[in-house]
Structure formats: structure tokens, C-alpha cells
């Protein structure tokens, strides 16, 4: 699936058929900030079954909605280590706190990239990221991308309000 932005054809729903843009936005954040990338798409059910941490960011402006991300345990650990540039203990409380904070930051950055890519100049306001249960990503009705990473999986869902 190509990752080039689609043409600017008028759409009633800005989230329709924008999965390549979703992938491009996520890839840009991962490559720049986490020294990782998307390997390829995976089935939603496959990704969903692996998710260990999730976070959501609400955006508001001319359009409003929520961008939610989920990470498998392997992805949360590997990306947090990449982000911080050092060892993160998978099992202790400090390591888990770092992975949770990282997941929230990643949601914030991917939401910013998605809103900027999809909706253009705003003004838009992003709320503070909040941790959510990974199960919440399962049944959301919105634009969805599920991706394999170098290690683990990432799910991104954008839901218009």
C-alpha cells in the first residue's frame, strides 16, 4: 500500500480512505523520534490480540475527534528503549511507568501528525494524552491502521466526533 498522501479531493468525511496517510503520519513520528519504522500492515484482530498499552488524545477545532494508539508489549518496550536511548526494565514499576509515559507521548505526537496531515491549518487544540484500556481500540468505528514494527505491533485509530 503506498504511503504517498492522496489528492485533495473534497470529502464529506476527512477520515475516509486515508489509511495510507495514517501510515505515513505514524511512520514519520516513529522514524524521527523512535529510530524505528513500520514494517507492514497486519490484520486488526492479530494486532488487537497483542496490545498491552494504549493512549488517546482528543483534538478539537473545525473538526473534532480522537486519535487512539495501542502498542503490543514488545513494541512498547523496544520503542521506549529507542526513545530513551537506554535499557528499560520490562518487569519493574519504573520500567512500566516509562513505557506508559512513552505510549502517551507517542499518542500525542501521532495525533499531531494525523491532524496536521488530514485537516490542514486549524486552529486545532490537542488535549493532554490519557491512558486507556487497549480493549477500547477493538470496536472503534473510525479510520484504522494496524502495523507490524521491527519488534511488536502498533495500532492507530482515528475517530471523528
Amino acid at each position, binding site marked *: 500500500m503506498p504511503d504517498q498522501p492522496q489528492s485533495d479531493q473534497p470529502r464529506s468525511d476527512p477520515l475516509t480512505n486515508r489509511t495510507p496517510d495514517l501510515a505515513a503520519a505514524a511512520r*514519520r*513520528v516513529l522514524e*524521527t*523520534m523512535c529510530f524505528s519504522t513500520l514494517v507492514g500492515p497486519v490484520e486488526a484482530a492479530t494486532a488487537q490480540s497483542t496490545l498491552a498499552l494504549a493512549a488517546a488524545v482528543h483534538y478539537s477545532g473545525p473538526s473534532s475527534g480522537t486519535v487512539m494508539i495501542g502498542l503490543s508489549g514488545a513494541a512498547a518496550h523496544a520503542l*521506549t528503549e529507542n*526513545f*530513551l*536511548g537506554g535499557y528499560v526494565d520490562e518487569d519493574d514499576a519504573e520500567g512500566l511507568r*516509562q513505557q506508559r*509515559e*512513552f505510549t*502517551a*507521548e507517542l499518542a*500525542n*505526537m501521532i*495525533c*499531531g*501528525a494525523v491532524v*496536521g496531515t488530514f485537516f490542514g*491549518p*486549524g*486552529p*486545532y487544540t*490537542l488535549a*493532554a494524552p490519557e491512558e486507556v484500556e487497549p480493549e477500547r481500540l477493538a470496536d472503534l468505528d473510525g479510520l484504522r491502521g494496524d502495523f507490524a514494527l521491527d519488534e511488536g505491533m502498533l495500532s492507530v485509530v482515528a475517530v471523528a466526533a
Partner: protein
Amino acid sequence: MELNILIVDDSPVMRAFIKRVLAMSGLAVAQTLEASDGRQAIDVLKAQHVDLVLSDINMPVMNGEEFLREMMANETLRGTPVVVISTDARLDRVMQMISLGARGYVAKPFSPEGLRAELERAMGVVNA
């Protein structure tokens, strides 16, 4: 010149990431100081010499806008350059923060090279 740099962000992992990127950027850093909101940052600035401030916008207690207003209202602090680091890349947001006194603006995601270039520009460093 080695710089004392104050990182203002409510996220500990983002502060750690910025420290890491500063090290990767090749900038000569003597010391990195940290604050989790604008109020703490003002306290640090009043207590220690700081050459450059990197500040988030969305923070509890005192956000980036309030922090800039308070800094610029203080004759002793207003000369210290502030570079804003934010997910919000909108031009109107950038211009708002510049009008409040920020010397630079870095939108996430950013690379070490991009951060260094903006910090040098904000500090008026030429051919560094």
C-alpha cells in the same frame, strides 16, 4: 561556549528524550536542568544561570504561554532565549509564541540536526 540548558516539560520521558537529542546534536552542553512546569522553571531561572530554555506549551500549573509572559515581564529573566518544543505545528501557534517572546520553535517530530539548527539560530550562533 558550553551551555546550561533548562528543559521544561511535564513528561519525564520527553525531558529524557530531549536530553538525549541534545547530546546527539553535538551542541556543547555543560549542564541540563529540568522543570516539569513553568512555575518550577521560573524558580530554576531565579536560582541558577541558564543560557537557553527549551519549553513545552501544554503543561499543568503554569503552561508555556504563561511561562513566557512571566519571563518577559521579569527584567532579569527576559534576556534568556526560549525555544518552544511542541506537537502543535500550526503557523498561528508558532507566531503566537514568537510574539510572546520565544526566540525559536521546534515542532515534534524533530531530528537532532533540526533541533541544533533551531537552537543555534535562536541563540544567534553563526557557523557553529
